[in-house]
């Protein structure tokens, strides 16, 4: 029984890591499609979303099987719960990568505007958060997860700056309203990627420290927020 459980948990961890890598790459490809105007890459992202969805189902079924057959407790239970939650966030991130790729087609002629609106900057920050989220799970690193949660504030701040820049630009030049609306939606999507990365960081902290910190404003002040 013990060997079986250990084996199952290791397989589950590997699946999450593989899905994490796949989604990280999907996001990277979608940004390259957007900023390089590479529509072939945008198509690749869209066609590979099926693979993400298949992983999502595989991981759900794997968790269900472990729950049913081994009745896990304590650390094992938290690992499986975390795997389920992270899986759901990764799957949503995969969908967002597809949305960004679709938006790349609409914005293929606006690479200068994207740069002027600092969309490339927010994309770099968000990619860094995604990498941190996956690394925090792989290495069981709660400190890295806490740093990620703090770093998310920078993304929110830049999101707000971009909103103001876009509003100003559209007021100034009504011909840019359509492109501006596309960019506004695009940036919302990018910001959502950061939120999902933050969710993963919160799940990793739950997995390691058994503390539930979601909805907490201050990841450092965890003790009072633990409502487990």
């Amino acid at each position, binding site marked *: *029984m*013990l060997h079986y*459980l250990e084996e199952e948990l290791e397989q589950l961890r590997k699946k999450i890591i593989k899905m994490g890598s796949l989604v990280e790459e999907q996001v990277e490809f979608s940004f390259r499609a957007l900023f390089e105007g590479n529509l072939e890459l945008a198509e690749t992202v869209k066609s590979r979303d099926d693979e993400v969805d298949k992983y999502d189902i595989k991981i759900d079924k794997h968790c269900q099987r472990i729950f049913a057959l*081994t*009745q*896990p*407790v*304590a*650390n*094992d*239970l*938290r690992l499986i719960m975390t795997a389920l939650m992270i899986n759901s966030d990764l799957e949503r991130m995969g969908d967002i990568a597809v949305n960004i790729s679709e938006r790349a087609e609409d914005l293929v002629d606006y690479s200068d505007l994207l740069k002027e609106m600092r969309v490339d900057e927010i994309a770099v920050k968000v990619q860094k958060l995604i990498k941190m989220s996956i690394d925090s799970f792989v290495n069981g690193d709660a400190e890295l997860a806490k740093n990620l949660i703090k770093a998310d504030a920078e993304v929110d701040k830049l999101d707000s700056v971009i909103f103001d820049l876009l509003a100003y630009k559209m007021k100034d030049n009504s011909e840019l309203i359509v492109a501006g609306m596309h960019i506004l939606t695009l940036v919302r999507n990018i910001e959502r990627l950061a939120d999902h990365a933050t969710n993963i960081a919160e799940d990793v902290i739950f997995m390691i420290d*058994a503390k539930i910190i979601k909805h907490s404003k201050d990841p450092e002040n965890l003790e009072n927020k633990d409502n*487990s």
Partner: protein
Amino acid sequence: MKDYKIYTKDLNLYYGSNRALKDVTIGIDENKITSLIGPSGCGKSTFLRTLNRLNDTIDNVKIEGDVMIDDINIYDKNVDVVALRKRVGMIFQKSNPFPKSVYENVAYGPRINGVKNKKELDEIVETSCKRAAIWDEVKDRMNDSAIGLSGGQQQRVCIARALAVDPDVLLMDEPASALDPISTAKIEELMFELKTDLTIVIVTHNMQQAARVSDKCAFFLMGEIVEYNSTKNMFTKPDKEETQNYVSGRFG
């Protein structure tokens, strides 16, 4: 320790030169279910049997330390052991009804405690059987031999027999380990109902059972308590790595 129904302090028990319990200090809450878990030979059943002095019947046993029930040390010389066992009932792994009728099994305790009036005995038997959730199944079979009942029914008759002398503590040593899942569920439901009036201490090897029924849980290893915690914490975030390893089946 007025906060606890049962309190043991620095409790040591030796079988000859073998120290089976090592400085066990624990407070057991009133009207709660406390489970004792741990691998075979860790001392949990030995500990359970110190709570009604059942180890007294074993040769070569030496006990040191205090075992307080309601702030009275039950190992004091002036404690009446028979009266103690009336207050602290016990249910064993294998149901052990007397080879008598269901009625005589349940009436046995009150009878030897001096209840002679038939009407009074009838009332005690009925109430005890109802409290043990066995009345509906045996009310028309009161004169049948208890040995003819199913294992689960026999175990509940034994519980009714223990309840008939109105104890305030019930010790259960793997009470459902020989029963099927339905009979096990009945015993567990019964425990929930009984804890409003009783303090229950249960030894179990079944981790899911400990998780389902108990409020607090003590993990024994080689005669010592490694961790004593709320059952919720024990199975979600135990403080000790040994506990994590045991409850998840990594050893034991």
